[in-house]
């Protein structure tokens, strides 16, 4: 039978996988775990990389091209290295803009200082820019929401800002907002420019691609130390770290959008006699608008995801308040702040998406009038709010003017309710979960970790490269091998194995969960939408908050780390499953129904195979998300790469160590990405879905 012969042939994938497994196991048993045995562990040939990086950055920042600069403060000349002066100039530029935006919202003196001096402020105590009353900003948010989409968005915007105000998070929220209002546009602009450049020049695209890959897979706090060294500490440094994190998706989506512009539209532009500039500004970018604006949306989300991490290096606002609350175990307050972050995310997300989809009312005749009416409305709100604030200053003679700026922690608080909820969860579930936790740790996690650590390096290479080869060919196998080689030659191989063990366990659970939940929800319109909302929530809700209850339930164990990772990493698996299943052409669904399949049969034999490549892209994302969270798990207590990164912050070689470790994590992610992405793309093409 041709069927049997083909399934037994060496060309069939199951047979290849089986062979691979056999050889892998033989290697595992055959190779002795000895220190000098290079088949067991490769020598740390690259262990000096952190030092090199460090010396290089240090030299550049503190020694290279010193200039003598007179400092009036100390009445002496000081030697300032050129590169440091440049990065400092960038820093102060960014800081100025952030302060400016912040003071528009909250008032202050720094903008005035930037044009005068601190002495001027000392001599002129009146010189302070007033804050915008919270009522005004709330009104404006509603108007912008209304203008962009309608009543619904206006209501959401108004409710969100009101929540933030009355729960006493107004100041930190506005600080966070001002920070995002700077970081996001800069990321967008930078991403747009890089995307256009890559579109125009193939070599730029080729050069940019690996950089983007690394930037998107490197855990953010591995480059916090270099950012501190280069740009210092403060809102500017935090903004720059955020920009590094938020720009890559913008570049990718810009490039994608430009590439998707139909050739004919481009040719039409050329035939209409556009110059290159006109072609770019009036034909290409407007035509790519949708993708570009999805990029904008991504940027906003990424910026918000960075708020907590950014507070490590000086971002003022919700992030730092959150860390303070969590550090004295005020989970209720923490949740309240977390909700603020989610609300800001939701409003900005909806506004940017509404902006992206807003094409219909592009009527040249109307727009002027409309803009006019919006302006008038905003002006009216401003006047009304100011008057209210003025009245408020009479009502609240003592203490705080609640109609102007509600001071931090002076609002009502829901913290006790949240706290009670957390306590309830603890009381209800703890003992049930305790047994489960013990079983999981002793019977699964510890043996699994030991098994990972017992793999000879040669066997690991064979397994991973073999999988890449079978699924995607020699090229992929070599690329993946290259990634692994870097880690194997660093001194962090064992740490990386522990990271890999936790991440892979989390991925298996997340993928199973996500695909199940996604499949169940994808059938119903309402369920799909709701589950996507839940996904949005968990993607923006700061993970640090649920780390604490998780620790309380599961202790400082790998279980906690894995659960935190699962909560976060299930999001993309679910999202992509819903999307994948819902995009199965209805014709095929109908065809299935007409052949009399049951629901389960239809799912197994029609929907799942067709949606599978897309779901695998979700799993790919799940891997990256899980890695990120396992690294964040260092804050719970791990002994993997993440812990080393955390430790690097206080070390003198921190810059180099942080970056090297970050690369190790990025390379694990990229190795998986290489295999899955290419495979999924070819599979999609084969199914005619590409």
């Amino acid at each position, binding site marked *: 039978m041709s069927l049997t012969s083909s399934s037994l042939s060496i060309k069939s994938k199951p047979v290849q996988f089986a062979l691979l497994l056999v050889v892998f196991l033989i290697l595992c048993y055959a190779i002795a775990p000895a220190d000098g045995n290079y088949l067991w562990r490769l020598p740390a040939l690259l262990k000096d990389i952190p030092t090199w990086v460090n010396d290089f950055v240090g030299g550049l920042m503190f020694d290279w091209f010193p200039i003598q600069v007179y400092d009036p403060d100390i009445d002496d000349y000081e030697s300032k290295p050129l590169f440091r002066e440049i990065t400092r100039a960038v820093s102060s530029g960014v800081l100025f803009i952030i302060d400016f935006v912040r003071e528009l919202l909250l008032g202050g003196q720094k903008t005035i200082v930037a044009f005068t001096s601190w002495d001027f402020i000392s001599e002129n105590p009146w010189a302070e820019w007033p804050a915008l009353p919270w009522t005004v900003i709330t009104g404006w948010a509603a108007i912008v929401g209304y203008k962009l989409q309608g009543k619904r968005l206006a209501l959401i915007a108004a409710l969100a800002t009101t929540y933030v105000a009355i729960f006493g998070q107004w100041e930190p929220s506005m600080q966070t907002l001002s920070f995002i209002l700077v970081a996001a546009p800069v990321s967008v602009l930078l991403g747009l420019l890089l995307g256009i450049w890559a579109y125009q020049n193939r070599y730029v695209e080729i050069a940019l691609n690996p950089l983007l890959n690394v930037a998107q897979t490197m855990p953010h706090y591995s480059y916090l130390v270099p950012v501190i060294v280069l740009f210092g500490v403060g809102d500017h440094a935090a903004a720059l770290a955020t920009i590094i994190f938020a720009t890559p998706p913008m570049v990718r989506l810009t490039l994608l959008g430009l590439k998707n512009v139909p050739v004919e539209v481009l*040719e039409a532009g050329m035939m*209409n006699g556009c110059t290159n500039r006109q072609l770019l500004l009036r034909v290409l970018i*407007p*035509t790519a608008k949708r993708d570009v604006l999805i990029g904008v949306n991504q940027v906003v989300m990424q910026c918000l995801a960075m708020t907590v991490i950014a507070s490590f290096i000086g971002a003022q606002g919700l992030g730092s308040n959150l860390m303070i609350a969590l550090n004295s175990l005020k989970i209720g307050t923490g949740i309240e702040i977390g909700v603020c972050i989610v609300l800001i995310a939701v409003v900005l997300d909806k506004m940017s998406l509404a902006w992206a989809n807003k094409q219909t009312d592009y009527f040249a005749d109307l727009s002027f009038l409309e803009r006019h009416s919006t302006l008038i409305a905003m002006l009216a709100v401003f006047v009304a709010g100011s008057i209210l604030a003025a009245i408020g200053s009479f009502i609240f003679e003592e203490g705080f003017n609640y109609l102007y700026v509600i001071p931090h922690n002076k609002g009502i608080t829901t913290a006790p309710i949240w706290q009670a909820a957390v306590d309830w969860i603890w009381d209800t579930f703890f003992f049930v979960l305790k047994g489960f936790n013990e079983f999981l740790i002793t019977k699964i996690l510890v043996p699994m970790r030991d098994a990972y650590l017992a793999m000879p390096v040669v066997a690991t290479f064979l397994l991973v490269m073999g999988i890449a080869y079978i699924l995607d060919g020699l090229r992929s196998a070599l690329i993946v091998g290259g990634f692994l080689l870097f880690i194997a030659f660093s001194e962090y191989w064992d740490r990386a194995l522990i990271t890999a063990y936790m991440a892979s366990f989390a991925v298996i659970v997340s993928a199973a969960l996500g695909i199940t939940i996604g499949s169940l929800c994808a059938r119903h319109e309402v369920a799909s939408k709701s589950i996507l909302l839940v996904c949005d929530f968990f993607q923006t809700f700061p993970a640090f908050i649920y780390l604490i209850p998780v620790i309380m339930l599961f202790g400082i164990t790998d279980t906690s780390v894995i659960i935190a990772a699962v909560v976060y990493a299930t999001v993309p698996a679910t999202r992509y499953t819903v999307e994948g299943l819902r995009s199965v052409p209805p014709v095929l669904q109908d065809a299935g129904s007409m052949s009399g399949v049951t629901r389960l049969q239809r799912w197994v034999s029609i929907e799942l195979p067709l949606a599978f490549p897309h779901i695998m892209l979700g799993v790919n994302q799940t891997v990256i998300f899980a890695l990120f969270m396992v690294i964040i798990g260092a804050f719970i207590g791990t002994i993997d790469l993440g812990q080393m990164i955390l430790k690097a912050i206080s070390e003198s070689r921190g810059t180099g160590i942080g970056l090297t470790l970050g690369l190790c994590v990025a390379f694990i992610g990229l190795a998986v990405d290489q295999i899955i992405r290419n495979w999924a793309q070819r599979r999609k093409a084969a199914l005619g879905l590409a």
Partner: protein
Amino acid sequence: MSSAGGTSEGTQAVIRCESVYKIFGKNSEALLDGASSSIDAETAKAAGCIVGVNNASFEVHQGELLIIMGLSGSGKSTLLRCITRLTDATAGQIFIDGEDILTMNEKELIEVRRNKMGMVFQNFGLLPHKTVLENIAFPLQVKGNNTKASMERARDMAELVGLQGRENYFPRELSGGQQQRVGIARSLAVEPDIWFLDEPFSALDPLIRKEMQDEFLRLQSVLNKTILFVTHDFDEALRLADRIAIMKDGVIEQLDTPANIVLNPATEYVRKFTEEVPREKVLRIESIMEPVNQSETMADLTVSKDAVIETVAKAILDESKPVGVVDEAGTLVGSLHASHVVDVLFGNRAGS
């Protein structure tokens, strides 16, 4: 190969191509060095190249409608793109009003495109973020014309193509036929001398296509542009063209009037196209009439030499006597027997 067809001389060629080549691949230069005329497929393949346009030479005259016909991959669109310099030809010379377009710099090229050329695309190539009016006005605004004048001109053009009332629609709100009307209006907005149409009606469904062809003929009768029209539809070519260039594998197999192509296919490839063609719909009386035989008694009926056979066949067949053929001035220039018409329509290869 026959790449020239004898036609109306005298007027200056608006478009003139001389030995134009477009070769894709790294070794194109080397491949060309060895070639004096057309490159044969084997050589090209050996050199790892694909020949898009192979030694094309022809002229298009003032007010003429030349159609380039070929199946997909024949190089017809590539040839059009070479002439508009959307791609650069590998070798040869292309003159627009006597100026070599291949040697123009960026600025000159933009000038030519802004003022002399208009182009219609198969998939319309409309700007999705602009309304009908803005799309039509786009080439004018690109030139830097003031907005009010551009919009007025655009409104006129919209009216010309029958889009009045839909000026503020977005392309995605229009049907395919309407979108192509926008494309046509846009290409004509700057009043170009030369009009390029790249499969303008191929993306439309058959009924709309017929309607648009009529519209096109109507416009051409008003505007009288010099036109280079690309299509894969032989019927369309026969219906619209003054002359047709049939391309295969980058080579122009035959360039002639529709009637001559149908009656005298130059190659086997061309003949295959003509086989299925209903002659009565293509041929005009002139191409099948016989000299006047003075001894015969003529019927009372006379037909114009420019009439398409189909339109007069029934009348001729009803006559027992030969029918007189007259020119525009009414002078008798030939005669036609009913039996001859039957021969042409159903019988052997006739007419020559």
